[in-house]
């Protein structure tokens, strides 16, 4: 079932643990992202899959075959590096042809496949350009074509888009996803950019300090973060201090002046989490957290409000639907649906 399998993989550099106890199985054709802050061990993981580094613990299997003793040159993986690592003394076509040449593909077939690869990444007509004469985005495409032309079992991408400017990055995300869907290559993407991971992947592996925090679809990881780290890393989150009071026959979640029926689970002091875009304003006297708007920032398609509430600071994001919005200094009530709220006991998870 699983195509690429990491089995309790670990890597330490001397005393320093870069990756620890990492288990992951990737299905054939899946697009998976390793997401985490800089230094959390994403590149190290990718390099171990590629074979440039040996794991100090665990094993990696591809298609049922243990990769441990397989040399990187024999693994048949396609890799796009953050710096692209194009061969500067070869033209785009020569760069792409290199892997085919190493595999002994005859010249005629090679030429055809190089032309197809260039067309796939939208670079027909650039065959004879040298990399230094190409823009960042074009170099990126050559690197992608070079990795894909050998028909790799797995495509490994290490922050492939981080050197591009924002607009180009968005275009390339869409294109990358399209190409991957078309050819169906199993893909592992490394990125520290959560929007990129969400836009591209079937599943996201959120990593922190060399460990996996959560594996799930973009929707799952965003809506049901498994840890405070995940909820903070994926988008913004408001946190309020509250308390769950369980008395005979009733259980109440209390924060400031408002209260909800408490779900089963923790009791005592808790942290309530709610995403800024799930919060609404209620000028009435309903069950809401009392707040004053300290800052109102217009951001085109949405408004960003910074509020001072009775339970601490909060931010609220409202779509710019054309409706009138509260002004700075106004007193409001912050409301949200009970199911949009996460609760975890203070000092513990969930």
């Amino acid at each position, binding site marked *: 079932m699983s195509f690429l399998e990491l089995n309790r993989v670990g890597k330490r550099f001397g005393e320093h643990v870069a990756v620890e106890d990492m288990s992951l199985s990737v299905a054939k054709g899946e697009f998976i992202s390793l997401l985490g802050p800089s230094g959390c061990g994403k590149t190290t993981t990718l390099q171990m899959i590629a074979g440039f580094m040996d794991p100090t613990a665990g094993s990696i299997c591809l298609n049922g075959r243990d990769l441990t003793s397989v040399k990187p040159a024999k693994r048949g993986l396609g890799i796009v590096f953050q710096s692209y690592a194009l061969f500067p003394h070869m033209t785009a076509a020569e760069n792409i042809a290199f892997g085919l040449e190493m595999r002994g593909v005859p010249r005629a077939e090679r030429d055809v496949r190089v032309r197809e690869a260039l067309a796939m990444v939208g670079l027909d007509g650039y065959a004879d350009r040298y990399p*230094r004469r190409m823009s960042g985005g074009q170099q990126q495409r050559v690197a992608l074509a070079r990795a894909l032309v050998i028909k790799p079992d797995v495509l490994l991408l290490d922050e492939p888009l981080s050197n591009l400017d924002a607009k180009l990055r968005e275009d390339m995300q869409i294109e990358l996803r399209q190409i991957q869907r078309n050819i169906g290559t199993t893909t592992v993407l490394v990125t520290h950019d959560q929007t990129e991971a969400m836009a591209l992947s079937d599943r996201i592996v959120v990593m922190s300090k060399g460990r996996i925090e959560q594996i799930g679809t973009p929707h799952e990881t965003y809506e049901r973060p498994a840890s405070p780290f995940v909820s903070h890393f994926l988008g913004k989150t408001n946190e309020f201090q509250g308390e769950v009071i369980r008395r005979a026959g009733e259980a109440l979640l209390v924060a400031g002046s408002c209260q909800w029926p408490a779900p089963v689970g923790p009791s005592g002091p808790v942290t309530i989490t709610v995403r800024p875009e799930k919060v609404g304003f209620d000028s009435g006297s309903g069950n809401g957290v009392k707040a004053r708007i300290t800052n109102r920032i217009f951001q085109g398609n949405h408004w960003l409000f910074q509020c001072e509430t009775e339970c601490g600071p909060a931010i609220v994001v409202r779509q710019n639907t054309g409706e009138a919005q509260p002004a700075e200094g106004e007193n409001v009530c912050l409301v949200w649906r009970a199911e949009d709220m996460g609760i975890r006991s203070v000092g513990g998870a969930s």
Partner: protein
Amino acid sequence: MSTSASVTAAQESAVPAPGKQERSGARAPWPLLLPALILFVAVVIVPLAMTVLLSFHNWGQYTGIEFVITLKNWHEIWSDPYFYEMFARTFRIAGLATLIAALFGAPEAYILNRMRAPWKGFFLLIILGPLLISVVARTLGWALLFGGNSGLVNKALMAVGVIDGPIPFMFTEAGVVIALAHVMMPFMVLSVWAALQRVDPQIENAALSLGAGQMTIMRRIILPQIMPGVLSGGIIVFALSASAFATPSIIGGRRLKVAATLAYDEFLNTLNWPLGAAVAVLLLVALVLIIVGSNAIIERRYSEVFR
């Protein structure tokens, strides 16, 4: 001669940086150049002009230098096969020393570049070591090792019975070439090192993942990228070797003359300054032509790729 600065400068000229032209703005503060310009004119241009002029003067055994304009020295150099032989030897020695320096220096730089932190600095120091010691001391070291029957290496090898007589080293062309290659090695290593700094550290992994073996990576990926460094290092080594004085004069002795030692002899022993000047000027012109020519070729060859 400041080492790394000259090496990078040489590389820079071999590989033109983009935007160099744009920088010379319209209102550049030219007067600031004046002190350097005066110094340059005083210590380079004037002596050079005087040397060129000197090469057209006459010289007689009893009259000394006669301040007339004559082509006699040039004619002598042109017609006497001795000078032809001497210049051929000079450039042969320089060429071979350059070749050896490249063959050993480029791999040396590559290995050095791959070393880990403490060792890298240590071995770099060892390679640069020769630059910290006087040329004369270094060259005398070779003489101590290989000088005739009493040279340490010769003595040892003869004692063990590997060789019957001493290895001919002193006063041979091979000896001069080897000693020069040793002396010049740091320039080659630094030059290739500078080129290696520009090579993407992931590029070998990229080639590896595409299925290339180590030899292929060296030949197809690394070598082409450090070639500009090897070539510009080669130009430096060649120019310094062709005009070297200390090494050829100690190892080569008085019989194995090269241009620099010959000019020296004409100046200080024969006292025929005009002839010495003509030899020196000819060496300079030949070197300038070779350097400018090969630099132009390198630039044309690599401008497309590295800019």
